[in-house]
């Protein structure tokens, strides 16, 4: 069966360090993968999208990698700040090519706490 796993339920790091979050998937061949941030009591907020033919994508202090051989995406936050504390969700489109639905399948999320 198809599965998405985010390896850590919670991750605590010191302010200024780089946070690395992992997303692994099985039995999918996604065309792209997305990362979202979710704060308590709020809906997820889109951060980055990476396509299957892209190895790496950057946006300010964020970097995402996508290894379709390992079936893994890594999400990095450099120079982390307490304001980065939130739950981070990876999501992918479970469809095979040509199917008619564009839903996202989400992992359970990793709760990141950046300690001052």
């Amino acid at each position: 069966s198809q599965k998405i796993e985010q390896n850590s339920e919670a991750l605590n790091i010191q302010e200024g360090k780089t946070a690395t979050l992992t997303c692994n998937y099985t039995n999918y061949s996604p065309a792209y993968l997305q990362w979202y941030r979710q704060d308590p009591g709020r809906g997820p907020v889109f951060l980055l999208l990476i396509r299957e033919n892209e190895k790496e994508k950057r946006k300010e202090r964020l970097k995402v990698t996508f290894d379709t051989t390992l079936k893994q995406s890594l999400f990095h936050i450099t120079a982390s700040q307490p304001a980065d504390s939130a739950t981070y969700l990876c999501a992918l489109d479970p469809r095979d090519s040509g199917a008619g639905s564009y839903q996202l399948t989400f992992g359970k999320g990793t709760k990141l706490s950046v300690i001052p």
Partner: protein
Amino acid sequence: GAGVSQSPRYKVAKRGQDVALRCDPISGHVSLFWYQQALGQGPEFLTYFQNEAQLDKSGLPSDRFFAERPEGSVSTLKIQRTQQEDSAVYLCASSLTAGFHNAYEQYFGPGTRLTVT
């Protein structure tokens, strides 16, 4: 600018009651999605609309769940005869368009927290 809005933000229903949850997507967004999020879990897909057409309802957990988007903008998720297991946050998301070669991000509302007692 205005984002996705949902109402009510909180709803308490007695078991067996019917509830209706409203979503106002971003103006001009073609695609609209409903997700259910249990505590400590990621959102789970319920249903998808492209304009007024409901193209995928494979995630609706039972025939007690019904969604509509009659004019291609506002959407309503209705749950009949609510059960305790329906307690969750219901998230609505919209995107400009959706297509295999056009992977647009989804914009989420704040959610409606439903508690069935």
